[in-house]
């Protein structure tokens, strides 16, 4: 065996705190090592050429690159050695940058540690076996989860690219948060006017199969071949027959249903179409409020419906769809105002959230666009906006900035002045964060043209006094306390992970952070991919985002899917479990622990019962290998012998 070892300086990143020449010199002493050198930037083109040349010149058959994290460049160097004619699994990397050079200043200790890391990689690479990928067919259909603007954009781009799209939306209509907004910053475009046509496209596109009021029940499979179980929740209205005429909604006697679309600003009917532009424009019954369900009698909608679409007996239905890739666009949620006790929680009707205010501004909202105080329906004259209502507050577990609130507050202040010219808006803010195109100019307009009073400081308390709300806070620029008698207070409640985000991540096998936002594959260079191949992210499920960013990421995710599907076959990762049928005793403990049901019982021609791995299903976790008592099932590339050789390289008494 002739191992070649390449120690990277990474400029001064490694060489600054590791004696790379000594590491190379020590590597040369290890039996099996035929060649060892150090190089300024091993990942650069000349660096890679150096490896290729050395493989030819020195007749090397195993390569160790000591450089940055294999999570960064393993693929780079695998391709390098493959080009030089070696099997790409004859590469091991020693991570001497992130795990050594960057975390310690003592050059002597770092160098010793780097020598150990290289020794481990050499020990392992000598146990490596050539592995070969197999190809499998891709199902060129894509699932998009979430019909907000990001999901719709992804669905439309994929569909326009010729792919069949399955779009699953858990609420009764697509549109997401954007469909609820009145105007958008910084252009003051009417939100539904620009979104509406997209919604119609989604509803009418022949390539898009829309499942509204449906949720993902189960996801099985792997990139290229997923089986998705979708729960179509019972609407109690046969959508095949419903024409969306709205007669049922008009006549329904249950007038006090919670209006999810309007965030409870005003009640709605128990049978309703969420909003006039809804796609699909179909009615659905809320059994929590419907008299037929609560009292067992009513039946008004069933009687009035001209197409006989009402079906009180309807049950949830599970349908299965097969796809090859998944775009996750499940959006975000808003902090429960009840947590903000210093602002009265939800005790004061005239302290509302930004999204509720958005509905009050909206011409198709419950007040037809007239701003009214929820308590007495009078027009407010003094309106106070409180930014960072929960955001950037460690104490309630939201240390991050919600990103878009500064902008929508400015927009709402501007719109308020348009609606009520003799009104005065006040904005309490921590910092104005307006880094987008035209954004900062927009916040200045709110102040300079529309007279919104910006007060830098936090609000400590909101309490009622007569018909007014007293907003008490600090003005940190003047160094004084301020109290404002407000008619209406609008809280920019923090953006948080969508409800059920964690459960969804578990179904998808993707990571989520402490806050429930999904984790991208690389924060800079792979912002759309997840660690699970075939699953892509779009929109605010990955972190709070404004509309243009969400749309951009939706398109980006679609581009990823389209490029994935531009191939007919995919290569499977050969680093999967393999059974040595001679050693296997057929106890099938591996079958019990496999998280992917990738192991089945097989009978050899001799009649011997053994375990068998379904190659395309195995994800390569290795739980089976550590379960098997006789070491008969080995996860390739991480076999017992490979890991033991690493242990032996550093544990010697």
């Amino acid at each position: 065996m002739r191992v070649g070892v390449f120690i990277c300086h990474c400029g001064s990143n490694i060489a600054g705190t590791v004696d790379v020449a000594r590491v190379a010199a020590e590597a040369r002493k290890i039996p099996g090592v035929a060649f060892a050198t150090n190089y300024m930037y091993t990942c650069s083109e000349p660096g890679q050429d150096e490896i290729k040349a050395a493989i030819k010149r020195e007749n090397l058959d195993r390569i160790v690159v000591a450089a940055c994290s294999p999570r960064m460049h393993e693929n780079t160097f695998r391709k390098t050695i493959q080009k030089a004619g070696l099997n790409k699994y004859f590469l091991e990397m020693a991570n001497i940058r992130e795990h050594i050079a960057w975390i310690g200043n003592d050059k002597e200790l770092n160098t010793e540690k780097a020598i150990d890391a290289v020794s481990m990689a050499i020990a392992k690479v000598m146990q490596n076996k050539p592995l070969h990928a197999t190809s499998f067919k891709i199902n060129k259909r894509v699932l998009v989860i979430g019909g907000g603007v990001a999901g719709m954009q992804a669905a439309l781009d994929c569909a326009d690219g010729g792919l069949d799209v399955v779009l699953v939306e858990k609420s009764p209509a697509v549109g997401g948060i954007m469909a609820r907004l009145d105007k958008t910053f910084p252009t003051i475009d009417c939100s539904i006017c620009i979104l509406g046509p997209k919604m119609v496209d989604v509803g009418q596109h022949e390539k898009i199969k829309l499942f509204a009021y449906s949720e993902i029940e189960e996801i099985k499979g792997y990139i290229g071949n997923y089986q998705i179980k979708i729960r179509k929740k019972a609407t109690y209205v046969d959508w095949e027959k419903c024409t969306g005429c709205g007669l049922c909604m008009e006549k329904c006697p249950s007038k006090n249903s919670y209006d999810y679309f309007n965030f409870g600003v005003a009640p709605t009917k128990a049978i309703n179409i969420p909003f006039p532009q809804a796609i699909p424009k179909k009615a659905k019954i809320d059994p929590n409020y419907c008299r037929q369900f609560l009292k067992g009698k009513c039946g008004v909608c069933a009687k009035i419906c001209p197409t006989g679409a009402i079906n009180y007996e309807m049950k949830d239905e599970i349908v299965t769809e097969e796809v090859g890739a998944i775009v996750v666009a499940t959006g975000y949620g808003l902090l429960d105002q009840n947590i903000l006790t210093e602002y009265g929680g939800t005790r004061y009707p005239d302290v509302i959230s930004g999204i509720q205010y958005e509905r009050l501004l909206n011409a198709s909202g419950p007040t037809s666009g007239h701003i009214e105080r929820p308590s007495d329906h009078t027009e407010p004259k003094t309106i106070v906006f409180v930014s960072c209502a929960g955001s950037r507050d460690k104490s309630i577990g939201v240390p991050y900035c919600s990103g878009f609130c500064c902008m929508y507050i400015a927009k709402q202040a501007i719109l308020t002045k348009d609606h009520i010219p003799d009104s005065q808006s006040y904005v309490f803010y921590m910092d104005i964060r307006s880094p987008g195109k035209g954004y900062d100019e927009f916040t200045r307009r709110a102040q300079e043209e529309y007279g919104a009073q910006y007060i830098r400081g936090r609000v400590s308390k909101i309490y009622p006094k007569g018909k007014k709300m007293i907003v008490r806070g600090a003005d940190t620029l003047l160094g004084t306390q301020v109290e404002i008698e407000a008619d209406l207070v609008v809280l920019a409640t923090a953006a948080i992970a969508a409800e059920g985000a964690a459960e969804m991540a578990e179904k998808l096998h993707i990571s989520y952070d402490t806050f429930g936002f999904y984790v991208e594959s690389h924060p800079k260079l792979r912002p759309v991919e997840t660690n699970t191949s075939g699953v892509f992210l779009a929109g605010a499920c990955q972190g709070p985002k404004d509309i243009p960013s969400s749309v951009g990421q939706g398109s980006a995710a679609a581009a990823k899917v389209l490029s994935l599907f531009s191939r007919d076959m995919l290569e499977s990762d050969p680093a999967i479990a393999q059974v040595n049928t001679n050693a296997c005793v057929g106890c099938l403990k591996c079958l019990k622990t496999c998280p992917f049901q990738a192991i089945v019982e097989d009978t050899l021609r001799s009649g011997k019962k053994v375990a068998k791995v379904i190659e395309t299903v195995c994800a390569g976790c290795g739980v089976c290998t550590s379960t098997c008592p006789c070491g008969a099932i080995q996860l390739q590339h991480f076999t017992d012998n490979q890991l033991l050789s690493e242990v032996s390289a550093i544990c010697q008494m």
Partner: protein
Amino acid sequence: MSTEKLKEIILKVLPDVDTVIGWQEGFDKIHITPFFMKSPEDAEKAVWNSLCVQNLAAYLPSLKKKTAVIVKGCDSRTIVQYMQEGLIDRSNVVIIGIPCTGVVSVKKVLKAVDYQPIEDVKFSDEKIIIKTSKGEKTLAIADVCPDKCKTCQYPTPIVYDHLAGDPIESTKPAESVYEDIKEFEKKSLEERRDYFKNEFDKCIRCYACRNACPMCVCQDSCIAETRDPHWITQKLSSEEKMMFHMIHAVHLAGRCVECGECERVCPMDIPVAKLKKKINSEMKELFDYVPGVNPEDKPPMYTFNVEEAKIKEHKL
């Protein structure tokens, strides 16, 4: 003694099975050996007494034809564990249970008679009378029983198709089972480490403990002897000996049915079962699991709960 009843049952099941596994007299009176009965004549030679120590259930996974096996309460746990792990087809096994009040440790008897050749053995209510050239010695069975009998919770087999005798209730308190483990844990860390080092240093790596273990399913594929994977070298060192015993213990985690065969067969008198018993006490504590008791249970190492009630995150 219910030998007659046992023979009756053997004769009854023989026509339905290929073999009935029981015990017969060995080369001398004190050594009882396994007996594979095929005919009614064989059945006549079957023996049941306090020297029938060997766990015959261990043969079951390797047999293909329908087999009947005679088991004591302790041995029946092996069968239950096989059922949990799907290692036998229950419909292919006929279980003849024998209620048992305790057996005799041959090692202890031989020690008591100073390793003299045995000329005869007789039983007389709860006593064993050993005759050697130096005369007769009467020993109370309770004094020469294996340790497992002292805390036996299952004098009657847990599963059986036929029972030779009336069921017996355990008279030993359940808390007593792991008392020896608790007692041992009172020793200091260093004392324990030295204890195991000294004990395992005696190991000659004959693998008798493994070969006798009914739960060591790997047989010829045991990783103590393979090169791929190469967990352990043939070097005669404390570390390698310790490693072998750790392999045995870890592979039996949540599976050891405490039949005691490993210790019975150890030629060096190493307390081989101690580590396994410790793990069992933890399985009970962590997962309320006792191996070989309920055929419906799942061995705890092959399953999990998303929330583990008893496993707390460890702080540094």
